[in-house]
């Protein structure tokens, strides 16, 4: 059997990675035309400011959730409850600070709540065999209510709080760079190590690709699925911490609203398939950046905000069409050398 060398252009066009990156580049270049000072970065109060920094900064919560979502989608699942988990984590923060816990411990409470929520989802999907979309819908619907109940524990009149530590995690900076970017980088690195440096990634992909076959091959598919939802709960908990510390108030009704949709989109733009079987952590982050870059550029373009969602939908559609095998084959054939 002979290996066929593909021409460079075709190899690039056939690759998955090129399209989200291209989309991101196009959006950023277009921004340069829309707003002349777009790429400007200055230092204000010991921290970098500018549109590019702003895109990274604002993309963090979605990107965090998208990472967990990528793992869950890798198992052929989906987690609709991530926004609610973030709300619960936020409510935990306000409650435990009111209760007077050290703020480091408060952080652990919030993340622990996220993990518990993930375990709940994982139990429903993996061990009770409930379809993921329904199983996570339960917590999606009830989670914000649970958040409000937590607020009621201490009277519920004023869910705002002061915490230098948590606010530093979210809005502070180290060496001119926002702290939350470091937080994200560390989480990304740890997750990448767990997925790619252990066999967990392979097991997740095998389970998502064919659960029955993986099971007969000796992979404990149920445990793998459970672990995926746990990881997703944890990253959603972190997103809840970042978002809640930003506003230093617990607002279960509206915090991280619809973030599950952006996270799913980020995974899909990054090349993940809802049919499961593959995890692309790096590309998922690019997907989240595409979404945030788009939102930011619509805002600075001065277009009425009503256009925001429609343009977002159009760009997402465009990227997905480019990613579809059928459409790509059509485009690639244009680059084929004539015989």
């Amino acid at each position, binding site marked *: *059997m*002979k*290996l066929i060398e593909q021409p460079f252009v075709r190899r690039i066009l056939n690759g998955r990675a090129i399209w989200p990156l291209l989309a991101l580049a196009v959006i950023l270049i277009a921004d340069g035309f829309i707003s002349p000072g777009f790429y400007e970065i200055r230092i204000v109060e010991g921290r970098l400011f500018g549109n590019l920094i702003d895109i990274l900064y604002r993309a963090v919560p979605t990107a965090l959730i998208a990472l967990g979502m990528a793992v869950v989608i890798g198992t052929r699942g989906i987690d609709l409850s991530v926004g609610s988990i973030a709300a619960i984590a936020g409510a935990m923060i306000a409650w435990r600070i009111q209760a007077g816990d050290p703020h480091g411990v408060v952080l652990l409470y919030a993340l622990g709540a996220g993990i518990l929520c993930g375990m709940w989802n994982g139990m429903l999907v993996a061990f009770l065999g409930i379809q993921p979309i329904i199983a996570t819908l339960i917590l999606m619907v009830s989670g914000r209510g649970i958040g409000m109940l937590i607020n009621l524990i201490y009277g519920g009149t004023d869910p705002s709080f002061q915490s230098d530590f948590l606010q530093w995690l979210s809005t502070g900076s180290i060496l001119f760079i926002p702290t939350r970017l470091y937080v994200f980088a560390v989480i990304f690195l740890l997750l990448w190590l767990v997925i790619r*440096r*252990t*066999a*967990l990634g*392979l*097991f997740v*992909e*095998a389970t998502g*690709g*064919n659960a*029955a*076959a*993986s*099971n*007969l*091959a*000796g*992979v*404990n598919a149920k445990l793998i699925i459970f672990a995926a939802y746990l990881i997703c709960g944890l990253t959603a908990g972190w997103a809840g911490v970042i978002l809640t510390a930003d506003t230093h108030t617990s607002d279960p009704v509206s915090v991280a609203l619809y973030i599950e949709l952006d996270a799913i989109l980020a995974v899909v733009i990054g090349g993940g398939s809802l049919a499961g*079987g*593959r995890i692309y952590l790096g590309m998922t982050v690019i997907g989240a950046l595409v979404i945030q870059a788009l939102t930011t550029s619509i805002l600075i373009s001065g277009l009425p905000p009503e256009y925001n969602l429609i343009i977002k939908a159009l760009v997402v559609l465009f990227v997905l069409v480019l990613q579809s095998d059928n459409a790509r084959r059509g485009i690639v054939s244009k680059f084929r050398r004539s015989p």
Partner: protein
Amino acid sequence: MAIMKANTAGATRIAMRGIRKAYPGVLALDDVDFELHGGEIHALLGENGAGKSTLIKVLTGALQRDRGEIMLDGEPVNFAKTGDAQDAGISTVYQEVNLIPAMTVTQNLTLEKTHGRFGFISWRKARAQAQQKLDRLGLKVELNRTVGSHSVAIQQMIAIARALDDDTKVLVLDEPTASLDADETAALFDVMRSLKAKGIAIVFITHFLEQVYEVSDRITVLRNGCKIGTSLIGDINRQDLIAMMIGRDLGEVEEAFAGERRDGSGEVVLTAEGVGRKRVLAPFDLTLRAGEVVGLSGLLGSGRTELVKLIFGALKHDSGTLKLANGTAGNNPRASLDAGIVLCPEDRKSEGLVGELSVRENIILSMQAKRGWLRKVSRAEQEKIADEMIRALAIATPDGEKLVRQLSGGNQQKVVLARALASSPRIMLLDEPTRGIDVGAHAEILTLIRTLCEDGLALLVASSEIDEVVASSDRVAVLRDRRKIGELTGEDITRDKIVTMIAGDNL
């Protein structure tokens, strides 16, 4: 006998000649002829993967043939889609009932063609039409009840009623009795006989041999994509029929193996005592020894796959004990793997491989599962193992990075074997290791089984091909009707003895 002659003497309705159909890597039909007369019930027999479904799909236009011709009443036909075949008078009722359970009988029976005006349905007319369809079969069913509230047997009849029109010439029934009990089956047979009396030609696909003898006029047997033969039912006895279905002439490799049998003096590595599961397989005893191949023979549905899965723990046994040389076996795949047992499942696509993963990833999957998720097999090691396996089993792939789903059937089967071997097992359970693969790969896999056995592995090989079992086994366990009915050793392992056991005494 006179009546039967009259029936089978009907004019040729359908003549399929030289039909060939290939899927990527698998030749599903190889030059198959099939003839169907008006007013006959023609049983189409064969094991899984023999080509029955493909032949029917080619006939009904669900699949396009690669070669060959189909004549309907002497005219060549080409059905581009199933609707065309339906219009020409060929109706099919598939194994899974294609009705909408939540809708009423009337709605189900008139789905394709509603009556009414201005887009409104006239339920009066619809009911009349539905009633007419039921009358054709002499069925008494409440029209306004939902289909789902009727028994499976009635649903099956309703499905047949829906398939039939005034101008139906051919009716294909794909495993119609699979979920029916004896009384329901008898009622279905009455309907089939009355349709036959009206001159309709019926293709009856089943794997229940007694039903074949009860209701059909002629039989055609397919095996591995080839037509083995057609016969009047009165002209063939049960043993010959079984031999047609699962017999196969020996290849050179098998001939060479058939002569030598080991005496089974190896160490006992697995003992099953009264292991069974309700409604799946009656309790059985079985021992496996190192350096011995135990064959598992029986017809489709006799419990071959189930026995293998019970030992592996993919199906949990609810009676008996399963002992290994070093303790009790776990009752799940993961524990079995740890204990050195591996399973190569029958259905490669749905249970064997992860198609979207590469050859390399599939090969190391079991080995990695055995090690646990924390101790990852390094990339370099993965590549080394995959390359070794690709070479050792002669897997036709440029490298380990090709996706498994892009390989041919035989090579996929080799990947399944490679995955099992990479986990360094002591007991290998192979379910139909040679199904649907070409002759070359077939011989290679049999040779491999032999070599593994000589290396001291204990093997249990379930196969629908009797001659293969005869050729490669040191001991043969025979199954019938979800029960292990006996074992054969040494000189007793012959095709005739196995066929006699499978056919049973009730002939």
